């Protein structure tokens, strides 16, 4: 019986000849990623060793990555103290894959991991962040865990008692129309499957549209797979994966793609033709409340947000800059742009996008999670509306339960910034 990508990856990582959905395994972990919540991981990690007389030391520091992104620079003494505690731990244990608050090597964890070649096809990647699903874009099995589970990984080097998930195959064909792309596809998928439709399952993406899609687009698709409840999204590694790792991430060692068998067993197959897809909008207050732009255009917008682990890469900024160049952000609307990493920011400077945004009246912020999760900056006022390229629109997500968040692509966000209302980028301004 044929195997899915996740079955193959977990068999290898568990040292077994083969596993099937439902089996319980303990896969070795290749990458263990945390951000500021490493402060809680450290706390739980030390508690595991407490009273044992054994010195607490992570199983393999070369596999641990810690990236500051959720609150950068620190917004409060409490966050700054958490970050200080993590730095001390990093120093003590000589954790090399540490990305502090810096303009060169800093950024959002889900951008840093691929950018620096930390993730490879076939790996098992865990992260204390639900959007760890992103790294399935490189053909890895990558999923979010809690801080205590990460402390367990730091101790034992394996993910304990993992049930091999079943897989839903998503077959995507057709060519995107103008100003329609990967974000619209994944919003459509979440809307179709519903927010819990893929709970405990993996989404494996196939089809000519996926084959032609850049790694950046695949990252957006896998990133938001969790919004359908998926344990992970996976795009089986192919030539584009190898191109990205070699040319953009500078990987020189061997890369071994893991691909599914032709007769792999899927729970079901969902086919999507993107050629007729309109720009998609996730309306308040759930990510699966997805409508085509034609049904919601015209909503008054107070804040535009472009960035995040979903859509803060250079092609996202390009799509927005191409629309806003030479125009102005509408009066009564403010626009915030935050690149996904220092490297993306630098490239946006080199290509002139930062000037395009600032001349239009947008505020360009430092790389990081920015306003996405409502902890740090860019909060919304009562009854205000945000149109955002981020990944969640839950009540209170951007810091104010009396506000509303619509999720969309960078093109829709930029067109809406110019018009001051939710707008279809295909119609021009």
């Amino acid at each position, binding site marked *: 019986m044929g195997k899915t990508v996740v079955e193959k990856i977990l068999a290898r990582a568990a040292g077994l000849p083969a596993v099937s959905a439902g089996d319980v395994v303990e896969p070795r972990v290749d990458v263990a990623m945390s951000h500021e919540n490493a402060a*809680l991981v450290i706390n739980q990690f030390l508690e595991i060793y407490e009273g044992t007389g*054994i010195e607490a030391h992570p199983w393999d520091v070369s596999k641990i990555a810690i990236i500051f992104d959720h609150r950068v620079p620190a917004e409060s003494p409490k*966050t700054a103290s958490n970050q200080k505690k993590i730095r001390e731990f990093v120093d003590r244990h000589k954790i090399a894959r540490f990305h502090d608050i810096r303009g060169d090597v800093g950024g959002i964890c889900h951008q840093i991991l691929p950018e620096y070649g930390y993730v490879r096809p076939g790996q098992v990647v865990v992260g204390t962040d639900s959007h760890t699903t992103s790294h399935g874009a490189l053909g890895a099995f990558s999923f979010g865990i809690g801080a*205590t589970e990460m402390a367990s990984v730091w101790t*034992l080097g394996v993910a304990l*008692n993992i049930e091999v998930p079943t897989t839903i195959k998503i077959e995507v064909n057709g060519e995107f129309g103008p100003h329609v792309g990967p974000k619209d596809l994944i919003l459509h998928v979440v809307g179709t499957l519903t*927010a819990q439709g893929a709970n405990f399952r993996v989404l494996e993406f196939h089809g000519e549209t996926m084959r032609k899609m850049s790694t950046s687009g695949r990252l957006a698709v896998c990133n938001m797979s969790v919004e359908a409840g998926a344990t992970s999204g996976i795009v089986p590694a192919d030539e584009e994966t190898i191109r990205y790792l070699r040319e953009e991430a500078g990987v020189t060692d061997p890369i071994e793609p893991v691909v599914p068998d032709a007769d792999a067993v899927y729970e079901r197959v969902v086919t999507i033709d993107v050629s007729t897809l309109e720009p998609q909008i996730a309306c308040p207050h759930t990510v699966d409340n997805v409508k085509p732009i034609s049904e919601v255009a015209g909503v008054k917008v107070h804040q535009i947000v472009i960035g995040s682990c979903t859509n803060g890469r250079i092609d996202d900024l390009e799509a927005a800059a191409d629309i806003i160049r030479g125009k102005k952000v509408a009066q009564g609307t403010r626009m915030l742009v935050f690149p996904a990493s220092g490297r993306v920011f630098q490239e946006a400077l080199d290509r002139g996008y930062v000037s395009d945004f600032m001349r239009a009246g947008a505020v360009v912020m430092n790389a990081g999670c920015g306003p996405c999760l409502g902890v740090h900056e860019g909060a919304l006022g009562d009854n205000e509306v945000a149109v955002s390229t981020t990944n969640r629109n839950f009540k209170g997500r951007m*810091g104010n339960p009396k506000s509303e968040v619509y999720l969309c692509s960078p093109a829709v966000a930029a067109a809406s910034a110019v018009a001051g209302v939710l707008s279809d980028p295909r119609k021009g301004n």
Partner: protein
Amino acid sequence: MGKVAFVVGDDVSTDVIYPGRYMATVLPTETPQYAFANDPALNNKLNAKLVPPGSVLVGGKNFGCGSSREQAVSCLKGWELTIVASDISRIFLQNSINLGLNIITAPGVEASEGDEVVVEGAKVVNHTNGKSWDVVPLPPARQAIIDAGGLIAFTRKRMLEAQAKG
């Protein structure tokens, strides 16, 4: 289990259970004060200590969706609530098991505030409205972690076994 203290709807996210702006507070001893902090009615009821330990929170579909933040579990565990919901998002369920939050999946469960809800065998029974629902058993692999007293204890045992083997 006992009296239903809260009934919340579908898709209650971790942003609602534990808003992002309190995420710098990480210790399980400190998180309970911020449970449902954006919802004054719920939060005040907890902080005024009007909810006795063992009270039940009844959720709908997709309870605990969203972020992996463990504070969303530890803040409910701190009040010793029991969660009963139609279905529970994967990471939230795992975090609950790891930290020992009492959590039960019972598709279709219905209750109003003040109802008496108990587990009887493989069913959740609402003695006030007279209805009952099947409990979805936990994945067997996760039961071992509960039996060990949570993931810290489970991992400690495994670590000590590995050390003993050298």
